[in-house]
Each structure stands twice: as structure tokens, then as C-alpha cells.
């Protein structure tokens, strides 16, 4: 367990989201800047977020909590873990997108003037990253709602970017369902604030600060707390893709351009889980039975997600349903509220971000090379796209939870945490869902990469280096974190300590 933390004023939390926001403003003027400079901005800004995240992580691991703008911004172990994940995945995705967006038909409809829409694409891309980072560093419970809704607004047009029937349908559902859901979260946030202010223990705007509300949560009337939690779970749970609030997710993840699918699946739903954990965990110490409810919700999500994935022929939809399932594991781990559970949940959050970014990039590479993402139309790609094949198989084995990959250790930690908590029913279901995940994804890998290549795939070639480079980095990370899990221990330990409130 960690020692006491010291609060330290810093401008880094603010820069972490102001840099991509400013870069986004510049990117909107891409017609004057040119495509190269716009794309440079798209790579550089998240890279700066990553570097700031690394420096903030160093200080947090040394025992500090960084604050900015008074106490409006606050970065502890949990926040910095998310900032780093967003920065790393954002940088690799931006790099991946450099060639991807230039392939006709992948960013916009065939025949549409894709080059003219690049500034809008990258401007929104950078604002999307900025709003996600903002949500992870704000300490204001109402601004957390504002930031989460802002991520929906910045990504809504990106989901519909193709502007054809399928994309528009996905974009409409995405904006509508998430906005309805997040309105529930607003009420939950406001009720939490009002209840904290009513305790008369906090002065001025202190009742808005999540770090302060935690200290008075035990004084909030039980009925009010229950209603607030219910609204927060519906609101942020919808955004996180937790069943039964998940119907928007497969449509949006499948129809968005692949770089956006990567961000949605790898980081955006994690940021929503962060918002859920940050707010609901406030109530955990006083009402530990909440853990059973949240774990049950997580178990339901993991089972439903992987069962739905079974029937998919579209690779992106299959991966999207798999994301629903995997977010169930994260929710189960964090929902337990114990140190081991939170550690496992957050480790899986990080691992799933890397694995799912890798898998979506591989599917994007297949689409880039063959023009299709249907499993039934793909076969024998191993010889034509060896790097993509190797990366996809590594991602598959990692998400299936096989050693020596990162997914194995995080899932194992969650299983151990469930056993420690005596939730054997949840453990049995989680293991069964894990086996089903292995079957579903290994079957896909075998179908797509082995067997005889159809005529349509004969001309397919490996994707350019700027596309397979990020994929290789992610694949290596999946192996390295599986073999050397202590690399991330100091940061995950800090992050888990922020959330772990039960069983200590």
C-alpha cells in the first residue's frame, strides 16, 4: 500500500487538454496549413499529451497529487493512468491515420473530396482527444458531465463522417442515445453536489469538487445516495457501453472511420468507466453492498457482449461486441471495490486499450488492402499480409487471456479478486465468458488468415509502414506487459489505491 500523498500545484493538467484543443483549432484551418502540417499537428499534440502524462506519472508515483486552477483540476494515479492511455493510443492512432485517410473510400464515400474534409476530420479528432483528457483531469463533478458530453459532441460527426446511409444511422443513434443517457448523469452529478452541500461541512464551491465530496459522502441520506447512484450508472454506463445500455456501441464502432473506431473502443469507453468509477466510488465506503450490484452488471455485460459477438460477420462489429464484453471485466474488477479488484480492473482497462487499438488497426489494415471487412469474404491473408496477420494473432491471444500476453495477467487478477471476495458465481461466469472469447476470436483469426485466399484477396499487399508501425508497437506492448507486468505496477498501484475503498 502507498504512503501519504502531497498536493502540488502544476500547470501540466491544464496543458494536457489545452494543447490538443489548440492544435484542433489550428487543424480546422488545414486548407491553409496543408495536409502534411495538419497531420503533423494530429500526431504531435497527442505525443505532447503522452510526454506530459509521463512527467505527471513520475510525480504521482513519487507521492504527489497535481492540482491546477485552484483545485478545479486534479491529477492522481487514476487520472494520470487514463491521460497516459489516451495520449499513447491517440499518438499511435494519429500516425496510423496518415496513410489510412488517403485511401479512397475509407474516410469518405468513394468519389467524395476526401482531401477537403481532412481539416474537419483532424480538428474533431484533436478536440475529441482534448475533451477526453479534460474529463480525466477535472475535479468538478458537474464539469465531468460537461466533458463527457463534449466527447460525444466532438465524436458524433466523426462517427457519421462517411455521410452515407449506414454512417448517418450510426451517427444519429450515437448522438441521441448518448445524450439521453448523459442527461441522467447530469441529474446524478447535480444531486450528488446538492447532497454534499447540504451536509454543511463544505464551503463555497467545495461541494462541486469530487475530492471533497468523498469526505462527506457518509453524511448523505441513503435514499438520495441511491437515486444519485442509479442516475450515474445509467448516465455514464450508457457512455461506457455497459449492458443493457450498449445498443449504440456496435453501430458507432463499426461505421466510424477506423482511426475513430480505435479511439472509441480503446479509450472513449474507458474514459466513461473512469467517470463512473470516480463518481460511484464516492458512495462505496458507506454502502458496500453497491459492489454486488455493480459486479452483477459487469458480469451481465461480459456475457451479453461475447454472445452477441458470436453471430457477427462484420469484423468491426465483432470487435465492438467484444469491447462490450471486455468492459464488463473492467467493471467487475473496479466494481468489487477491493484493492486487488481495482488493480485487476485498471490493469485490464490499460491492456484492453492496447489490445483493442491493435485489433481495430488490423481490421483497418485488412479493409485498406482488400476493401472488405466481412469475415466471409476474407481468407488466407497470412501470406499476403504477414505483419498484419502476426499482429492480429497476438491481439487475439492477448484478448483471449492466454499467457504470456498482457490480457492473461489482468484477467487472472480479476479472477483472483472475485475469489478473494467470495463471489464464486461471478468467477464461474467470468471464466466461461473468457473461454467463449477465446473460441470466438481464435475462430476468426483462423478463418481470416489461414485457408485459401479468394480471388478478391489475391492482389492484397501488406499496408504501408506508417500503418503497420503503430500495430507492431502495440503488439510488442502486449507481449512486454505480459512478460514484465511490474513495469506498470507503480502507477497501477497508485491508481488502484484511489478507488480501493472496501476490504482493506
Amino acid at each position, binding site marked *: 500500500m502507498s504512503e501519504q500523498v502531497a498536493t502540488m500545484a502544476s500547470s501540466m493538467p491544464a496543458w494536457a487538454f489545452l494543447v490538443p484543443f489548440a492544435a484542433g483549432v489550428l487543424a480546422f484551418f488545414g486548407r491553409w496549413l496543408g495536409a502534411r502540417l495538419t497531420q503533423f499537428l494530429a500526431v504531435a499534440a497527442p505525443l505532447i499529451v503522452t510526454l506530459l502524462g509521463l512527467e505527471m506519472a513520475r510525480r504521482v508515483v513519487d507521492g504527489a497529487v497535481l492540482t491546477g486552477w485552484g483545485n478545479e483540476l486534479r491529477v492522481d494515479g487514476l487520472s494520470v493512468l487514463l491521460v497516459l492511455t489516451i495520449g499513447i493510443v491517440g499518438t499511435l492512432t494519429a500516425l496510423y491515420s496518415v496513410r489510412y485517410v488517403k485511401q479512397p473510400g475509407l474516410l469518405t464515400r468513394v468519389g467524395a473530396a476526401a482531401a477537403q474534409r481532412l481539416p474537419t476530420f483532424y480538428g474533431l479528432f484533436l478536440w475529441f482527444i482534448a475533451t477526453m483528457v479534460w474529463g480525466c483531469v477535472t475535479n468538478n463533478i458537474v*464539469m465531468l458531465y460537461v466533458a463527457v458530453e463534449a466527447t460525444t459532441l466532438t465524436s*458524433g460527426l466523426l462517427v457519421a463522417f462517411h455521410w452515407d446511409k449506414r454512417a448517418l444511422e450510426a451517427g*444519429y443513434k450515437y*448522438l441521441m442515445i448518448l445524450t439521453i443517457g448523459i*442527461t441522467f448523469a447530469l441529474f446524478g452529478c447535480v444531486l450528488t*453536489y446538492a447532497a454534499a*452541500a447540504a451536509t454543511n461541512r463544505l464551503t463555497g464551491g467545495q461541494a462541486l469538487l469530487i475530492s471533497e465530496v468523498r469526505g462527506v459522502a457518509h453524511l448523505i441520506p441513503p435514499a438520495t445516495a441511491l437515486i444519485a447512484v442509479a442516475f450515474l450508472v445509467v448516465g455514464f454506463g450508457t457512455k461506457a457501453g455497459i449492458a443493457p445500455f450498449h445498443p449504440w456501441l456496435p453501430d458507432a464502432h463499426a461505421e466510424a472511420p477506423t482511426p475513430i473506431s480505435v479511439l472509441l473502443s480503446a479509450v472513449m469507453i474507458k474514459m466513461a468507466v473512469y467517470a463512473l468509477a470516480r463518481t460511484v466510488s464516492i458512495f462505496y465506503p458507506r454502502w458496500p453492498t453497491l459492489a454486488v450490484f455493480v459486479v452483477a452488471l459487469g458480469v451481465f455485460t461480459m456475457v451479453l457482449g461475447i454472445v452477441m459477438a458470436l453471430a457477427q460477420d462484420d469484423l468491426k462489429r465483432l470487435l465492438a461486441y467484444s469491447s462490450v464484453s471486455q468492459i464488463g471485466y473492467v467493471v467487475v474488477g473496479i466494481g468489487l471495490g477491493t484493492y486487488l479488484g481495482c488493480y485487476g480492473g485498471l490493469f485490464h482497462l490499460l491492456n484492453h486499450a492496447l489490445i483493442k487499438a491493435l485489433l481495430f488497426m488490423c481490421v483497418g489494415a485488412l479493409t485498406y488492402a482488400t476493401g472488405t471487412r466481412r469475415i466471409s469474404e476474407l481468407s488466407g491473408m497470412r501470406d499476403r499480409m504477414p505483419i498484419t496477420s502476426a499482429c492480429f494473432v497476438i491481439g487475439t491471444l492477448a484478448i483471449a487471456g492466454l499467457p504470456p500476453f498482457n490480457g492473461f495477467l489482468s484477467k487472472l487478477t480479476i479472477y483472483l479478486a472475485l475469489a478473494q471476495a467470495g463471489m464464486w458465481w461471478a468467477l464461474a461466469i467470468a471464466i466461461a465468458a473468457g473461454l467463449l472469447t477465446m473460441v470466438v476470436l481464435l475462430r476468426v483469426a483462423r478463418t481470416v488468415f489461414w485457408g485459401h485466399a479468394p480471388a478478391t484477396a489475391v492482389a492484397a499487399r501488406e499496408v504501408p509502414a506508417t500503418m503497420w508501425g503503430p500495430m507492431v508497437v502495440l503488439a510488442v506492448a502486449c507481449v512486454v506487459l505480459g512478460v514484465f507486468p511490474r513495469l506498470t505496477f507503480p502507477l497501477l498501484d497508485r491508481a488502484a489505491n484511489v478507488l480501493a475503498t472496501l476490504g482493506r
Partner: protein
Amino acid sequence: MSTAGLNGGLIQTLSMVVVITSVVAVEVRRLRFAAMAYSAQALLIVGLLASFAAVNPSLYWWAAVALITKAVLTPWFLFRFIGHGEDREIKPLIGFGPSVVVAALLMTGFYRFTHGHVALFAPTTLAQEGVFRTNLAVASTVFVLGLYCVLTRRDATKTVIGLCLLENGVHLSLVSLAPELPETTLFGVATEVVVTVFLLLYVIAGVRKEFGTTDTFALRELQR
């Protein structure tokens, strides 16, 4: 802050009319009239906020923001959008007669329930008193009517109006639950709603062009 100094009669009247405008916005089949009902509700909310501002001057700021975002910009977007398409709403899941009955039952039932059990939503004693109690009951009733609208209407334009009602319900509750919310936070919340409505209508305009309708039941491409 206390209830002394508030014009209770005016606030009660405005609150009741807010609920009625919600029912009209949900039930009327002409989209232009529904948008008008929404606009009237927005103005009433501005009036309510200004009335409450007698005991909490910071609400004047909130009233000004609501005037611009809810009573000017949002109706402008709605009328512009409706002006380019069919004015009659796509037939909803529930027919007019039964729907009016359901809305009336929701209105009276939910209002009575929340007014009677306001302590569930109101952690402060002030929020449980007089006009603040009424405000919370009205806010939750508008919220439920908005939810009813988005769940039962097939027309995408009408679901946007339902979403606006949903948001109005939550924003109204801020008067009783969070009267001292800082201006920056209020501004963030208010701006978000306008941008949401704008983006949704922008995407629905694309849907109307590609699908030839705003019927959400026609959105079946992703099931193929």
C-alpha cells in the same frame, strides 16, 4: 436563501404552465406547433428563473443564458430545420387519444408522487419547502414527459424536442438543487445543450436527404 421575498403565486402559475407546454410539445402532431410549445416553455423557464432570482441574484445570469440558448438559439435551429421538410409528424407508436391519456396520467401521477416524496430528490430542507418543492416536482414531471416523448415518437425531429424537454427538466431542478452553481459551470451545461441540438439536427438533415424521411423506423441499414 429563503422562500421569503418570492412571488409564490406567480411561480406556481408559471410552473403549471411549463408542465402544460410539455404535454402540448409532446402531443401536438404539427412539428411547427410542437416547436412553438417548446419555445413558449423556454420563455416560461426564463421567467421562472428570473422570479427565483429575487432571492438569489446569481439566477439572473442563468436566466440570461437560458434566454439565449433555450429561447432563441434552440427554437431558431428547430424552425429552420422544420421549414425545410414535412411539417406533420410521422405517426408515433401510440395513437393520439391513448397518448394524451398516458401523458396526462404521467403528468398528474408523477407530479403528485414527486411533490409528496420530494425528500427523495431534495437533500436540503429549503428545497423541500413551498415553491422549491413545486419546482422540483415540475422539473421531474417535465423530465418524465421528455423521456416519454423520446421513447414513443418515431419522428427524429420530435425526439429532438423530447430531448430538449428532458434537458429542461434537469435544468429546472438546478434552481432548487444547485442555486449557487458557478457561472462557468452553468455556461458549460447550457452551451452543451445548444450544440447537441445543432449537431443532432445537422445529422437528421443528412438522414432526411439520404433516407427521404425522418422516420427512425426507416433506419434499418445496419440490420442488413
